[in-house]
């Protein structure tokens, strides 16, 4: 079922929680709402669920307008941040709750409920835990019970609020993959909230980046990473190195460092780049003269992370290089090298500007 959100806004007292927001979600899409806390993402999710009332705007599920429809009749599944399982009910009863709450005419027989619940528990691989109570389960298991409970009534739309926020890294990884499969298998439309950019990028078909109650960008994870619409998106989606200097005649100068930036307007400019866009060499090239000193070395998995210092830098840069590169350059702490940026990103009110440099 597709979801069409148009001009939804919300104000709490003096706080503007949501600026008017438009968002179209296609049938079967998995959408991540990504943003820092206070960006309005949870408010938007709760408005879509009907747990919160918008001040203005409309929401359609398919052709059906649901703006004024009560949560009870919206046919949504909702997974709460801390699961909100019914603590005094067994896992079985938790999952059966929605079926038992149906009006008498639509309510399945007890044996049908039993079959359906066991089928759901099978799906979340918790059949053996049917008689346990929520407090007796691990965080990951509770999360799966919450999912089974939300899916029991075959909702058109599944909404998840920070679904993996409270879990440790390994379980989180596993559950993400599992949710992705489940989504492909069952084909429901789903919208989830997260503050974790990695989670949003890995799980979503498209990501909605939000800040201060506004949508900053809606794009596929790939586009988002490669072509961020503005500075906020760029900074929120990963680590950032800053380079500030004066631009004249297509060259940025900063102390004894300089780099060629064709097409950038003259004046005081700040350019940004990602750690993986910093390459290292023993000699400067005409396009870039950026002398640095290696200040710290941290091997992390497939790459080596370096902290680079220079007197022309206000704060150190981060660079990630391959082990092969690391060995080829014989990098040690205190080694003096030259940084060669493969790409520089500039943002101003008018939008984004990328400068590609012939290195790497």
């Amino acid at each position, binding site marked *: 079922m597709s979801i069409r959100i148009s001009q939804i806004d919300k104000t709490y007292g003096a706080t503007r929680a949501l600026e008017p927001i438009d968002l179209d979600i296609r049938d079967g899409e998995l959408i991540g709402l990504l943003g820092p806390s206070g960006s309005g993402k949870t408010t938007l999710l709760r408005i879509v669920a009907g747990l919160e009332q918008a001040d203005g705007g409309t929401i359609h599920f398919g052709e059906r307008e649901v703006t004024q429809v009560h949560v009870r009749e919206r046919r949504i599944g909702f997974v709460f941040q801390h699961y909100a399982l019914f603590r*005094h009910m067994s896992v079985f009863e938790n999952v059966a709750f*929605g079926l038992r*709450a149906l009006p008498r005419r639509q309510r399945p027989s007890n044996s049908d409920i039993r079959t359906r619940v066991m089928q759901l528990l099978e799906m979340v691989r918790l059949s053996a835990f049917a008689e346990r109570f929520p407090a*007796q389960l691990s965080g990951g298991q509770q999360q799966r019970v919450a999912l089974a409970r939300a899916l029991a*009534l075959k909702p058109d739309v599944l909404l998840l609020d920070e679904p993996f926020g409270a879990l440790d890294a390994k379980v989180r990884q596993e559950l993400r993959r599992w949710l992705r499969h489940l989504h492909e298998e069952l084909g429901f439309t789903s919208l989830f909230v997260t503050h974790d950019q990695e989670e949003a990028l890995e799980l979503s078909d498209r990501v909605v980046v939000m800040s201060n109650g506004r949508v900053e960008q809606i794009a596929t994870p790939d586009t988002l990473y490669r072509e961020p619409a503005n500075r906020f998106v760029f900074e929120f989606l990963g680590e950032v190195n800053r380079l500030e200097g004066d631009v004249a005649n297509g060259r940025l100068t900063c102390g004894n460092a300089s780099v060629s930036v064709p097409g950038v307007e003259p004046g005081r400019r700040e350019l940004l780049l990602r750690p993986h866009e910093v390459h290292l060499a023993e000699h400067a090239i005409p396009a870039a003269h950026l002398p640095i000193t290696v200040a710290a070395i941290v091997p992390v998995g497939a790459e080596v992370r370096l902290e680079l210092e220079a007197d022309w830098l206000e704060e150190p840069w981060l660079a990630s290089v391959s082990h092969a590169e690391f060995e080829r350059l014989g990098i040690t702490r205190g080694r003096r090298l030259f940084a060669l940026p493969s790409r520089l990103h500039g943002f101003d009110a008018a939008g984004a500007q990328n400068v590609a440099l012939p290195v790497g």
Partner: protein
Amino acid sequence: MIRIGDAPGVRRLLIGVALVLTALFLLLPLVAIFAQALMGGIDLYWQNLSDRYTLAAIGLTLLVTLLTVPINLVFGIFLAWLVTRFNFPGRRLLQTLIDIPFAVSPVVAGLVYLLLYGRNGWLGGWLDGYDIQIMFAWPGIVLVTIFVTCPFVARELIPLMQAQGAREEEAAVTLGASGWTIFRRVTLPKIRHALLYGVILTNARAVGEFGAVSVVAGAIRGQTNTLPLQVEQLYQDYNTVGAFTSASLLALLALLTLAAKAALEWRAARRESLA
């Protein structure tokens, strides 16, 4: 290493003092009540119990309690729900107002009701025109008892419901449950123990209230005497054994209340250790 206050001498001294004080101030009076009541033998005890006026007092006390407890049960849930689930102007004020019956002396409460509902009172005069008498009759006793005991249930529920939050109720509503289903299957089981505890406290106070009731009851023997009033009146009449007989009933009720409370706490603790 010995922690502060953990030296064996200090520990024994403190435990000893606590035990002696408990025996002196709590246990001894309790024993005294039953000793006094049974002083004239079991026959006299029964005779005193089956006294016409004592039986009437027992009946009236039961009536007052049976009316007060359910009313305050519903009122307490309603109030706790209102304060913890909704945000409205005056919410904090209301939370403070709930405590008024605890803050004022019961005698003052009785006097205020007398002022309002007495024959010359603001509402009493009007009701008198319809031949409805509140003061010096059982409705007045019920009214002041409700007033004095109304915070107990709400006071037990509010902190609990605040701590539990409304997430489970929200989950239930997304699963299509109606308001009544949510209350019956989600909220009530969560607050069951606190609710029962509130009821026990309400019950104990409703049975034992003296100050407020004594102002509005008018002490008409056999008509508006509750058990505590009856105890006082018998004692004024120099009928010590009779007074203590009635008092022993109240003490017995208090003991039952404590037993019920202890059983509840024990069960709650056991549930917690199981979960």
